[in-house]
């Protein structure tokens, strides 16, 4: 029985899959934060290159991956698909557990799958510098890596708690030649405003996004890059799910259950959209697709499906998505990459339509699952990826109860080699099981007048 299912470089997908082509109804359009009008490509031109704007709005089913991008992706792609036989044995489950291993990329996660094309399209448009935000640092180090390859400058606003918790992520950005600043910072107007309001704030992705957008909008040679949430980011990540589908086909399998963790939603989208597309179009209607979130920030599980800002300062377009409110600063959980108040509009729509479902988990049970995984499969996963591990284990254990031999596929989005202080805190019993007090919130929201 095979442990790793590998593809040749020549078998790497040549096109990204755009799920917008298969949505029964088009996405609700993003709105301009100042006017409330539908956003036009022109509105986005001061922060994004036109090709990415085109991809953002495209409804073509497939979009070609440029050769130069594919060439760089071969540094680690196609990524391996693993059959987690030792984990299966430890769980005594009849289920088959597969995981797509994205930790093989140089920065150690799925993030460069979109960092490379984003840097590429910006350079093609004559942009010299990119500004971005990062939560746990996986995105920041990936964009640093990508901009370095294209001789561009890069400034990363890193959420302050993560900046303190994960010092080696900053070092990695430095190695790749990028500048990394703890957010909120005094460098931007939004950052100064937040610091003035709350000098001790732990920061959040929402705040860091405001800073990076402001930086890009106020420098002519600079554009903004977002590591998740947006349609074009989800698009670039679909290389993961397309490879996985080919790899499973090679062993004559197809997943019954597809699992990924959700912060903004891009790694989840990357693995699941190719399967979600086949579910929507009726080709494979029975696939169960599960998004896993932290109980501290359960956007899809406990949030509202509504128009909201993507950032704290209200500089981004207003998007229809599941949200906990753009002013929500999630508690300082160790899965920093999942501390986002909203979720990708595409993922949100699929959740709203019942194509996917979501679950949420506490920190301690997530780390417990990660430790089980490390002790069977060897890899120490990032706290974000550990959420997917937890849900996969839960499904496998249900299979043990029911005796079903389901095929489970999850996205192992990155390694945890920079997260040992989090593991240390787990073993020391210092991890707090945060949760979102949804009952109180819903009780008060229930009294709000319902508006269109």
């Amino acid at each position, binding site marked *: 029985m095979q442990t790793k299912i590998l593809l040749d470089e020549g078998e790497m997908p040549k096109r990204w899959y755009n799920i917008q082509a298969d949505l029964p109804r088009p996405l609700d359009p993003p709105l301009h934060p100042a006017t409330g009008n539908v956003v036009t490509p022109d509105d986005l031109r001061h922060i994004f290159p036109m090709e990415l704007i085109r991809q953002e709005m495209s409804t073509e089913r497939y979009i070609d991956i440029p050769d130069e991008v594919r060439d760089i992706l071969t540094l680690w792609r196609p990524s391996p698909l693993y059959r987690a036989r030792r984990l299966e044995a430890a769980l005594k489950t009849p289920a088959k557990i597969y995981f797509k291993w994205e930790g093989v990329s140089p920065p150690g996660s799925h993030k460069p799958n979109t960092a490379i094309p984003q840097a590429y399209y910006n350079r093609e448009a004559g942009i010299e510098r990119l500004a971005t935000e990062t939560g746990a640092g996986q995105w920041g180090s990936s964009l640093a890596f990508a901009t370095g390859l294209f001789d561009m400058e890069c400034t990363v606003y890193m959420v302050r708690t993560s900046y303190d918790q994960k010092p080696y992520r900053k070092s990695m950005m430095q190695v790749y030649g990028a500048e990394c600043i703890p957010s909120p910072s005094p460098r931007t107007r939004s950052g100064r405003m937040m610091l003035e309001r709350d000098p001790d704030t732990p920061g959040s992705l929402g705040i860091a996004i405001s800073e990076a957008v402001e930086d890009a909008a106020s420098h002519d040679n600079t554009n903004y890059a977002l590591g998740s949430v947006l349609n074009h980011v989800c698009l670039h990540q679909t290389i993961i799910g397309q490879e996985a589908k080919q790899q499973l086909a090679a062993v004559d399998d197809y997943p019954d259950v597809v699992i990924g963790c959700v912060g903004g939603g891009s790694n989840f989208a990357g693995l699941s959209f190719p399967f979600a597309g086949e579910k929507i179009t009726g080709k494979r209607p029975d696939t169960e697709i599960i998004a896993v979130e932290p109980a501290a920030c359960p956007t899809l599980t406990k949030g509202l499906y509504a128009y909201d800002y993507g950032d704290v300062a209200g500089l981004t377009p207003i998007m229809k998505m599941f949200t906990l409110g753009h002013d929500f600063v999630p*508690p*300082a959980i160790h899965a920093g990459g999942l501390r986002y108040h909203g979720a990708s509009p595409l993922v949100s729509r699929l959740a709203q339509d019942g194509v996917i479902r979501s679950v949420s988990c506490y920190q301690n049970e997530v780390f417990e699952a990660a430790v089980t995984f490390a002790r069977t499969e060897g890899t120490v996963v990032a706290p974000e990826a550990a959420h997917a591990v937890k849900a996969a284990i839960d499904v496998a254990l249900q299979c043990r109860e029911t005796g079903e031999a389901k095929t489970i596929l999850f996205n192992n989005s990155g390694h945890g080699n920079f997260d040992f202080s989090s593991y240390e805190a787990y073993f020391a019993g210092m991890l707090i099981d945060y949760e979102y007090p949804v009952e*109180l919130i819903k009780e008060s929201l229930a009294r709000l007048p319902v508006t269109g």
Partner: protein
Amino acid sequence: MTTIGLIVNPIAGMGGAVGLAGTDGQVAEAIRRGAVPRASFRAAEALRPLAGRGIRFLAPAGPMGADALDAAGVIGYDVISLPGETTSAADTGEACRAFIDAGADLVLFCGGDGTARDVLDAVDRSVPVLGIPAGVKMYSAAFAVSPVAAAAVITGLDSARLRDADILDIDEEAYREGRFAVRLYGTARVPYIPGRVQGAKAVYEEADDERAKRDIARFIAEVMVPDTLYVIGAGSTTAAILSEIGLSGTLLGVDLVRNKEIVARGADERTILSHLDGAAAARIITSPIGAQGFILGRGNQQISPAVVRRAGGPGRIVVVGTPAKLAGTPALYVDSGDPALDLEFGDSVAVVSGYRIAQRKRVASTVPITTPR
């Protein structure tokens, strides 16, 4: 240079060793039963690691401070008062006021709950305090876990943060009769050093208590719904909720609020029940009390089992607590007086600890469970 005012209650703890439930008003009896003063020894234990560290000590002469400093080998301290032969709460007050005048950074006291109350009376929240445990009862949250731990907190004072600590008033008469009658006496400011495990020091957990209280209050104010009766328990965290909505309640009592107006202040059980009778819906907001973290049963007995049931059961209770306070209480306790009700709380409870943030905390049993064999 750090300046520390030291006060020792020489008779603290004497009652305990000879089977008295406390020493208040019982010194003669304790001595008759053969009790020996021990507080000075406990204080010296805490002071020994601090000798020669450049700390400026202030203390009353004799057994109320200077003796312990001598025993610990601290030299060159300042004597700030000369108490009489038999020491009293008045002596404690006088010494504490002298500490404040001399610019003390911390009042270090050695005793039990009674001493903590005397110190709080004198310093209130103007100066942080820390207790060296030496009393019979130490339910208040101002004590270090041991004399040596008190020394560790003081040597790390520069990096310590301040948090609120409940000072409790236990009725010794009732206690001797086996009843546990307690009320929240006040809250002191206490230095606290969070765990030093690397990486566990998430910035947020260490953030100042006052800020956390404001965040909790802002959130609760936001989720308060019209026409619901809010039964708001004792403590500074719940008091912050009232001040957030522009009200001032009783810090140490139970206040009733409806439509963001006070309907009863310092309510007793009967008053609460009568208001609940006319209420369409009710919620109880409490903060864990004391060093052990009691949701019910300590410091808020007005919120009786009957009150909880009439409000709709444990599900109608909103527990609030700051991250610093929760970090010091690994589990919470319920001791409402009705064991069946206590069980309805289940294994865990969500405690609101910030703006739209809660922590899931274990609820520990107060009753030892014996398995029938």
